[in-house]
């Protein structure tokens, strides 16, 4: 236990993302209401985003916008750029994409849920199953 | 061995395949359709015969089409055995075409275009199997043949043929996929080749005896078209098909492809030497003997003529397997030549059965007393055919039986000789009474007095007379076939 604790403390961000993700996954599998499942799905995807963004973090670094360059291109070459001063831009880029994807998926899923509701007047899975087996 | 590359084998296979679109497009004009069948059949026979002289000179014709994997190509190689089988199949196809016109039109069957198309496809596959250079090609045509005959077997599209078709497929397709395919792939994975060669494909020590035993059994039972018991029940079931199908396919093409495959396996894949070394011939002979005797006994109890013929076929097929399994030159000769001899004999019998059915509508032997007086030609031909199957002179069947018996002596297998003799007696028992009753029995309907001759139409009569005639000719002149076999087996 004594070994585990520092390990957790040093990487608590990863533990958090796993817990968050598992909450989402549990909701997706176990919840009965389709909207709750959708919410679970969103939590699930958000957890991944959290994970990625935390990869990009660097201690003592700032946002990845080169400061000296503001307002003109010429000054840029004068001051040397130190990689350690800026956090990693790549995960942010990737997550911009992932966010968009999850929003898009969520939108489509909502549309589908609306369709299901229009057809069956319910979003509870067990009721839906009953309705389906009736036929 | 000298080989010649030629497209003739391919053309011989394809000619009846390419005629199918023409057949389909001329479905509304039966006469045009049938004349195309003749043209195709004749060309096919001529193509096959044109290769005969080359083969008799001891050369082989080869053609590789598609290299699938090293040692396993889609390829043709015409050797003596293949030639023998191809001649038999192609010539009988032509004869059967005539017969089927008479039969199908005589009974006003439905779906004649479908019938002739699949018939053509089946015969293409048969020739392809005959000319196969390796096991993969053989398997290919074997499967095509299985599937092409399904619509023929189930031609009537009624409940009965549905059941028969189901049984047919279960046995034929089930065994070929379930037994032959794994055995074949195993052979390939061990040796890296599937080319037939008289020495066998297995190098010394590559195959242990238990493995060889299992493989051989998988092949022998797997080629269920050969009707080895207990995988024979499809054949009697398939007799629901129209008689031309029973005649050509279930006495000549389909069943003989099965037997031919087993011959190829024994002589081309394992090789005679390997099998004699492991002493596996006796095992196959035992299996074959059981089939011979049991099916002969069953045949005795059958009243439907076609079913009796079917069981007779099963027993005769095992003769061939039996002969090859003797692994002696004489036995091999007897076995392989029985392919031809039995083909002509049995097709005559089937033709007669069909002719009787068309002319009188009778299917059962018990109804046939006195029929010989009405249909003397048919029954005479039937007599000759029966002689061929029993193995009595002056029919070709005698020649093969003679060689088989010599073969058993040569191999010093006296018990098996007794099997052959016993089965010949049984054959006589189930055929001769039909003929006796036909000529001398009392017909049920009519009393005494002169009987009006009431033969079937000429389209039916001529083919059966012709095959009966050939059956006799083969007794006197078997030389070409003998030579082909000796070349094919490398016995010269």
């Amino acid at each position, binding site marked *: 236990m004594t070994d585990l604790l520092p390990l957790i403390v040093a990487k608590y961000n990863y533990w958090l993302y796993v817990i968050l993700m598992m909450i989402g996954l549990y909701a997706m599998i176990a919840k009965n209401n389709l909207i709750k499942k959708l919410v679970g799905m969103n939590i699930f995807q958000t957890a991944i985003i959290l994970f990625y963004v935390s990869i990009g973090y660097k201690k003592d670094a700032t946002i990845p916008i080169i400061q000296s360059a503001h307002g003109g291109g010429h000054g840029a070459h004068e001051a040397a750029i130190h990689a350690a001063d800026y956090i990693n831009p790549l995960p942010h880029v990737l997550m911009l994409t992932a966010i968009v994807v999850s929003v898009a998926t969520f939108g489509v899923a909502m549309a589908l849920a609306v*369709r299901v509701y229009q057809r069956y007047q319910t979003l509870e899975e067990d009721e839906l199953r009953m309705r389906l087996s009736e036929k | 061995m000298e080989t010649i590359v030629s497209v003739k084998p391919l053309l011989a296979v394809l000619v009846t395949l390419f005629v199918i679109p023409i057949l389909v497009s001329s479905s509304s004009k039966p006469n045009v359709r049938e004349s195309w069948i003749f043209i195709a059949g004749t060309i096919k026979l001529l193509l096959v015969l044109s290769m005969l002289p080359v083969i008799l000179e001891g050369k082989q014709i080869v053609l590789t089409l598609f290299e699938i994997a090293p040692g396993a*190509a889609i390829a043709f190689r015409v050797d003596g055995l293949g030639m023998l089988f191809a001649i038999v199949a192609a010539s009988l196809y032509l004869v059967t075409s005539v017969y089927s016109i008479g039969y199908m039109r005589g009974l006003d069957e439905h779906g004649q275009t479908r019938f002739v198309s699949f018939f053509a496809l089946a015969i293409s596959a048969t020739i392809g199997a005959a000319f196969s250079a390796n096991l993969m090609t053989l398997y290919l045509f074997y499967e095509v043949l299985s599937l092409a005959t399904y619509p023929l077997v189930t031609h009537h599209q009624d*409940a009965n043929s549905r059941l028969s078709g189901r049984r047919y*497929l279960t046995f034929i397709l089930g065994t070929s996929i379930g037994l032959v395919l794994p055995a074949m792939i195993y052979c390939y994975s061990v040796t890296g080749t599937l080319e037939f060669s008289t020495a066998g494909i297995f190098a010394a020590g590559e195959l242990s005896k238990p493995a060889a035993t299992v493989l051989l059994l998988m092949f022998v039972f797997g080629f269920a078209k050969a009707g080895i018991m207990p995988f024979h029940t499809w054949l009697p079931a398939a007799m629901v098909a129209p008689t031309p199908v029973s005649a050509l396919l279930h006495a000549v093409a389909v069943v003989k492809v099965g037997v031919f495959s087993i011959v190829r396996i024994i002589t081309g894949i394992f090789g005679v030497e390997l099998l004699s070394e492991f002493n596996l011939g006796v095992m196959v002979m035992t299996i074959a003997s059981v089939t011979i005797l049991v099916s002969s006994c069953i045949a005795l109890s059958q009243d439907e003529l076609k079913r009796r013929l079917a069981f007779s076929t099963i027993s005769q097929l095992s003769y061939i397997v039996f002969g090859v399994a003797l692994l002696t030159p004489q036995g091999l000769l007897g076995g392989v030549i029985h392919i031809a001899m039995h083909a002509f004999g049995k097709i005559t019998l089937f033709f007669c059965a069909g002719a009787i059915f068309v002319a009188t509508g009778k299917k059962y032997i018990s109804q046939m007393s006195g029929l010989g007086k009405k249909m003397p030609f048919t029954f005479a031909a039937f007599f000759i055919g029966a002689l061929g199957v029993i193995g009595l002179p002056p029919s070709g069947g005698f020649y093969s039986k003679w060689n088989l018996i010599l073969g058993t002596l040569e191999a010093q297998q006296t018990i098996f000789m007794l099997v052959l003799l016993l089965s010949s007696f049984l054959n006589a028992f189930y055929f001769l009474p039909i003929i006796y009753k036909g000529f001398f029995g009392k017909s049920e309907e009519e009393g005494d007095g002169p009987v009006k001759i009431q033969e079937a139409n000429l389209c039916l009569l001529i083919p059966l007379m012709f095959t009966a005639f050939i059956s006799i000719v083969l007794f006197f002149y078997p030389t070409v076939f003998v030579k082909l076999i000796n070349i094919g087996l490398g016995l010269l």
Partner: protein
Amino acid sequence: MDNYPALIVVAPLLAALFAGIAAWIEERLSYPIAVIGLAISTFSAIMTLMTVIASGTIHYRMAGWAPPMGIEYRIDLLNAMVLLLVSGIAFLNLIASYKSVEQETSDRAGSFYTIYLLFVTGLLGVTATGDLFNLYVLIEITSLTSYAMVALGDKDRGPLASLNYVFIGVIGASFYLLGVGYLYLITGSLNMMDVAGILPALKGSSTVLVAFILCMIGVWIKMALFPMHVWLPNAYSYSPVAFARMVAPLMTKVMVYVMIRLMVTVFGFEYIFETLNIADAVVWLATLAILAGGVMALAQKNLKKMLTYIIVCEIGYMVGGAWMGNQLGMTGAILHILNDAIMTFALFLAVGNMVYKLKKVDLTDLKGLFGKMPWTMTGFVLAAFSIIGVPPTCGFFSKWYLILGALEKGAYHFAAALIISSLICAVLFFKVFEICFFEPMSEGHGHGESHSQVAIEEAPISMLIITGFVSLSLIVVGLYSGTIVNTIILPFLK
């Protein structure tokens, strides 16, 4: 033109956008735009394949940046083949689809074609890309489009089936994304070749192991490997025919391609088969998939559903072959990607023709179909034989390699499963044929011409020609499989 690799993917995307605009202005234009787009794509795919065969792997730098910095299209023999397969099938299906779209989704045909093209874009992009994250984005495009399509088909059950598909699809894609994240974290790169270069040094790392497992599970969910297949049968059988015909042969096959790409290019055989000890377990899973797929197919009463379970079964073939860990098995798996795509396409084309005429394809609806639709049935029979594995159709030859691979590894259970599944498929299809051939059962012996005088009611000629063409190509591809193996697959594996 050096830009063929980009054009393969961009042409359908551009066409999708133009078709989307046209849908609002002049809907009739959407269809020709789509045809042109896919024609360009197919042509580019052919050119690319020829270039790759002639002069080796193509590296195409997007935006001109060198690989680990920018995104690279790395087209080797395997991609090139799959690219041609995807664009070709999409193109042919589009031609065959005009009539069925008119019948099924006439009021929003323009949008249908747009989604269709976007789906193809996604598949092509997945196949062409050499970047792990780019792959994810494109997988999501294919997923989103197929969610929409599935819901469009069956008005009753489609939306619910699609929603379930969304849940499982999102889990699959997220697992893959997470796996890529783990890989990125430990290697710092997203380019496949770059990652592959760094990984050998990290052989024993638990992070790499987890990354591998996550990627594989993600891809397996997307390809519907048993027992992660539950979404597939409903999703595919409820989608509109024009789309089902394309998604059924392509989607799962492209995912198998992704799996093989990850195994061969990114993680490497050495890592998977020597460091890890899970190959046997996966082969067993594949064996189970084959058997379970076959058995579940037997229980179906609807032709479309039955075929979808056959897809589940076929997935087992490819996964098993790829995890055999030897050249023969991998050859079989890759060859089967090609063959299975073509034969599933042929099957679904035939089914599409049936749906066009019959509206629904429960097995009992198929009575007398041999008489009514002889040409469609010919195509169906050929495709069925290919699935069963009857030579000379192509299904036989890939099965040949798969069994050889299994024997070489000593995985006899897998070989046995392949044989058994052939038998099961034979039973399945002959059950269908019997219904089509024998029923309605005639009285007595069926003599006389009256029996066969069923009026022929075939599908439109455009659909028939494509069906015929694809069915024949089954045999042609089968006969030339030796050539395909020698010019494409073996050089790729070397």
